């Protein structure tokens, strides 16, 4: 089949990360500071940046969309284009696809993509009023709210429950995902849970939130920002840091191959995304050195391990319990600690970790000879009865 002409034609050349509580900063200022760091990391100046893509998890009430066109002025760039993009946890995958089309047409030479959240700070405020979790995220608008629907955790825990009912997956097996990601986080000084290892017993004794989910099945509520710079491969060679090439990208929609009620709640839309991305890159699963799989909750990792084919459908529980995704396992997954133990900024979290692994900057958790990383995003609308629809697959490589 051979590589697609687009494979290796574009590269990530700059990365900026702001992690940890940011109580006195707006999302706009966090995003701008992450962007500044990314531009500096690439060895560029603001004058080089021809366009900006603002990555937002614009779900529900739209609180996260509360910053406006002021962003590019705050950052101080003379941009040819600026727009917002994102569907739940599929921010970076979608944003990159758009950025590459601008680069392809010469509308910009370098594009900055950035996202920021103040979910943690906002949840501290709503806690005082008796709300728990991200009460600020969606104020109205979806079915089920008066019936006790807590959106993300309610819907995702149905998926886990359905997988358990159909395949006999156990809570302890889901716990193995949580434990493995914490092992990785304990090797990442930037992770929220650095220095705080957990065991299966800790997982089992953590409070039940929405059974089958315990607290330790759930991702972090975070503050922070991540930005990266994308450019063409020829320009990438002259940047300050080693380029991370985009080898392939694919997308899948659950609603595309099922009746729209989406009755299969035990898989994600991996198949078309995988096919597109892997055929562009002309590689197989065996070529992937580590994976950054979207992990809003534990079961999403299990579904993807099955759906990509690291194990058979229904066998994900045994696969993770055998330590396959943990340090030393057959396929290292979420090597920075993921959304479960590092910080939650959609698929930007996994993308940032992919860049670090491919540059050889991952310190104690560095995967040896890391040449190819698979990064996924997962998101869309969560309107009951339904599930996150989009799945994005991005294959990144150290060599074009």
């Amino acid at each position: 089949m051979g590589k697609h002409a687009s494979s290796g034609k574009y590269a990530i050349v700059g990365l900026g990360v702001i992690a940890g509580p940011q109580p006195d900063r707006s999302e706009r200022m966090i995003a701008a500071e992450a962007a500044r760091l990314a531009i500096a990391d690439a060895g560029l100046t603001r004058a080089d940046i021809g366009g900006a893509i603002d990555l937002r998890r614009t779900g529900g009430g739209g609180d996260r969309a509360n910053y406006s066109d002021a962003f590019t002025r705050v950052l101080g760039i003379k941009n040819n284009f600026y727009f917002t993009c994102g569907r739940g946890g599929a921010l970076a995958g979608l944003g990159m696809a758009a950025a590459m089309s601008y680069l392809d047409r010469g509308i910009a030479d370098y594009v900055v993509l950035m996202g920021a959240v103040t979910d943690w700070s906002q949840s501290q405020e709503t806690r005082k009023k008796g709300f728990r979790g991200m009460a600020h995220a969606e104020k109205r608008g979806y079915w089920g709210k008066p019936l006790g629907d807590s959106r993300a955790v309610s819907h995702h825990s149905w998926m886990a429950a359905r997988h358990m009912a159909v395949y006999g997956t156990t809570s302890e097996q889901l716990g193995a995902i949580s434990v493995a990601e914490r092992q990785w986080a304990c090797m990442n000084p930037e992770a929220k849970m650095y220095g705080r290892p957990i065991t299966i017993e800790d997982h089992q004794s953590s409070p039940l939130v929405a059974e089958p989910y315990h607290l330790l099945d759930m991702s972090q509520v975070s503050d922070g920002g991540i930005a990266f710079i994308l450019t063409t491969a020829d320009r990438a060679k002259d940047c300050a840091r080693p380029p991370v090439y985009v080898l392939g990208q694919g997308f899948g929609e659950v609603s595309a191959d099922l009746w729209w009620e989406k009755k299969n709640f035990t898989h994600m839309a991996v198949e078309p995304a995988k096919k597109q991305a892997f055929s562009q890159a002309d590689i197989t699963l065996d070529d992937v050195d580590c994976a950054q799989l979207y992990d809003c909750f534990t079961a999403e990792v299990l579904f993807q391990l099955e759906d990509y084919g690291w194990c058979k459908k229904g066998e994900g529980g045994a696969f993770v319990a055998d330590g396959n995704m943990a340090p030393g396992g057959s396929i290292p997954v979420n090597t920075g600690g993921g959304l479960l133990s590092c910080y939650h900024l959609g698929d930007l979290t996994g993308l940032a970790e992919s860049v670090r692994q491919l540059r050889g900057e991952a310190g104690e958790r560095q995967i040896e000879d890391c040449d190819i990383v698979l990064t996924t995003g997962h998101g869309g609308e969560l309107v009951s009865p339904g599930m996150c629809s989009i799945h994005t697959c991005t294959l990144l490589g150290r060599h074009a």
Partner: protein
Amino acid sequence: MNVNPQSYTVDLDWKKPYPSIDHDNEAFWDGLKEHKLLVWKCQQCGAVYWPKAYCQNHENEPFAANCEWTEASGRGKIFAFNIHHWAFHPGFKEEVPYVYALIELEEGPLISSQLVGDDLPTDIHKIGQTVEIVYEDHPAQGFTLPKFRVVRG
């Protein structure tokens, strides 16, 4: 009319989120007040949708031209469920733990709601129990919520 004798009235201040009633679903919420569970049905091919949708079986028809709201049986089977032990919204503090289920209606579509009654399922590995609608009336607020209970046998 499919009136369930075990439906009940709650005439207190409403401290939880309000239902989101808009142009597309107003008829559905009006139906609940009359103790009818309405689904969106294609009069041409019989396909059933919930919420309101376009019939997938015809090309280039005006939007929803063949469909109308039709009363459903109010019965279905549990497709998956979870047990909420944690009240994210303070309005649910007194209710936890509660069972929140995804229900496959006899007519086909999935709907989600809270399960009520004495016979609540407890083992999430066991699904497929038959459930039936229970109407929870809130006359002071002007809406009725559709809840479900497990049917024995």
